[in-house]
């Protein structure tokens, strides 16, 4: 059973993520009209939105503490929000500003917030081994922290994931692998790239627990994650948890989705886990006013973060030379191009 306050917490997280991404989409598209140029506008580069994935982030992260580690893939916003990543600094990072989480060096696919042990990688499945490492550290130090690696269903054919399952299992590490199954890996439907419909069955081959939540249902995710995270925290080993989600948008902004049948998109949109959770809240006797309050709190938080981020200064171009090392080898390498010093137009 998931308590009412927990339902409300998930709902607020999910609504925050959805509203956040709707606003990001607006900001992203500004400056990319009428012709879409990926490097133009206030948010340049690729942008992978997670609308439709919210239940996975909220349902899992609900059971996590700040000292638990999360690694996220290229579609990280909903997970970051649910993990408690600083929303203002995350937004500033996405806008490429100096006060962003990484001072503008990372961008939306590379969000790092050590305060809540959150990290990303844009390389498919490559967040899995570091999550195993966080679990290893927890075990060696005898803490009860856990580590969670999020990845897409397209990533579970990757060596880094399969090797991580095995290592986590044989070392009995406190790790949960969360597969967000949105049926698509860019333009490739799941059945084109694997003969195994239930990704959680991969666990069987490595001797760890496998679970699958078959519907876009935050409550079911939360219940499954409670078990998986609890198992890890109690020292009883890793779990592979696959969660059905759906993709409401293109793979990235600008994706024409011409490969995707209309019916598939329509069907996906019918499965909105946020609406579903709203009905659950109502069934638990939460009144509309309370729901509206949660929504408007989310709205205000999103607006505040975006306004704040847009007010932040851009980094200096010279900042590019910093942070390669925390302990720069002075006198060994000069990163600055010599022509920038000696050339010039004068």
């Amino acid at each position, binding site marked *: 059973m998931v308590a009412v306050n927990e339902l409300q917490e998930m709902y607020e997280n999910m609504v925050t993520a959805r509203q956040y991404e709707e606003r990001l989409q607006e900001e992203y598209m500004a400056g990319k009209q009428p012709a879409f140029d990926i490097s133009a506008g206030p948010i340049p580069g690729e942008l992978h939105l997670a609308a439709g994935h919210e239940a996975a982030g909220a349902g899992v992260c609900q059971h996590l503490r700040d000292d638990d580690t999360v690694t996220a893939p290229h579609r990280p916003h909903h997970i970051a929000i649910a993990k408690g990543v600083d929303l203002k600094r995350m937004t500033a990072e996405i806008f490429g500003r100096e006060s962003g989480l990484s001072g503008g060096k990372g961008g939306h696919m*590379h969000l790092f917030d050590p305060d809540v042990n959150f990290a990303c990688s844009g390389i498919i499945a*490559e967040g899995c081994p570091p999550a195993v490492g966080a679990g290893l550290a927890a075990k060696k130090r005898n803490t009860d922290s856990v580590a969670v690696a999020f990845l897409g269903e397209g990533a579970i054919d990757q060596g880094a994931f399969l090797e991580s399952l095995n290592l986590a299992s044989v070392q009995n590490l406190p790790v949960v692998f969360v597969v967000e199954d949105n049926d698509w890996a860019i333009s490739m439907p799941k059945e084109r790239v694997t003969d195994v419909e239930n990704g959680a069955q991969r666990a069987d081959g490595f001797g760890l627990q496998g679970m699958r939540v078959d519907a876009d249902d935050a409550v079911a995710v939360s219940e499954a994650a409670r078990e998986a995270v609890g198992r890890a925290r109690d020292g009883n080993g890793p779990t592979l948890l696959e969660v059905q989600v759906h993709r409401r948008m293109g793979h990235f902004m600008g994706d024409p989705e011409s490969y995707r049948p209309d019916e598939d998109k329509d069907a996906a949109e019918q499965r909105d886990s946020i609406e579903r959770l709203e009905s659950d809240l109502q069934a638990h006797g939460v009144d509309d006013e309370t729901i509206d309050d949660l929504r408007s709190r989310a709205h205000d938080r999103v607006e505040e973060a975006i306004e704040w981020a847009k007010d932040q200064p851009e980094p200096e171009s010279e900042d590019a030379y910093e942070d390669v090392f925390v302990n720069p080898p002075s006198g060994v390498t000069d990163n600055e*191009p010599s022509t920038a010093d000696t050339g010039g137009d004068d």
Partner: protein
Amino acid sequence: MAQQEKDDASGQQAGRSLTMSRAMVEAIAHEMRADDEVFYMGEDVADYGGIFDSTEGLLEEFGRDRIMDVPISETAYLGAAVGAAQEGMRPIAELMFVDFFGVAMDQIYNQMAKNTYMSGGSVNVPMVLTAAVGGTYNDAAQHSQTLYGTFAHLPGMKVVVPSTAYDAKGLMHNAIRDDDPVVYMFHKRLMGIGWLPAPDGPKTGVPEDDYTIPFGSADVKREGADVTVVTLGLHVHRALEAAADLADDGIDIEVVDLRTLVPLDTDTIRDSVAKTGHLVVVDEDYRSYGVTGEIIASVAEAGLDDLEAVERVALPDVPIPYARPMEDEVVPGTEDIAAAVRAARGDE
């Protein structure tokens, strides 16, 4: 020789111009029609037509058996290309971004690149590894690299980097027909993709018929008397832009487009330096232990008499940052090239 070729076959005479992606696809389609053993594997290469249009339209003509969407398992499918090639087929396998080579490098550098040598030449690996390269659109550290030097450094692979549609087609014909493994690196910014506008240069005239451009033939894209600028890929066009600006100040640069890193056409570079006495090497890869150092060394080895001054312009040794001001700082721009040319001349 390179110049000769251009006059014969390229450009205006062809009567039509193509984007680099169309030219590349045209060569692949031609080879696939001619030889049933040619096939293409990659992520999103079928219905999507390649994220960077590298296979646009091929699914319709050749079907899923030959234009194969494969799982996100680069080790498995790049390695499968190696194995099929050793069976005598002619696979083309795509890395969606060259940055992803890390997950599959063993198949590339220990298998694909070495099996010929380790077998004493009794085995060969006639495959093409295609890969999108390059930055300039704020895709940050894991999606913006060129890694030219990495591939060129490791023995056993031929490394091709086209800068125009004309070159892209001729080099692709050659790549598929070559009996050795070829890494074909196409710059995203040059492909002519709607959402990633290309500069003016890469769209060129392209003959309808097939033709090959031999590997190891650098192309003088602009003749000039004062300074030799050796470069490749996107930076050919940035160098040509710099040339136009410099010409206004009476500085006449020669732009040498390497077209292939392996084999490297040292003769064309040395001839040009013998004429100008000034060498500037421009690269979109990291500065240290890379293309710029190699080109300069290859000139130095031939004797330093001709060489009065050397400059290099490359990415500093930092990962590529996301935010615009920082990415613009590290990726060499037209002004950086012009500044290096002036520095080589001792202008202050």
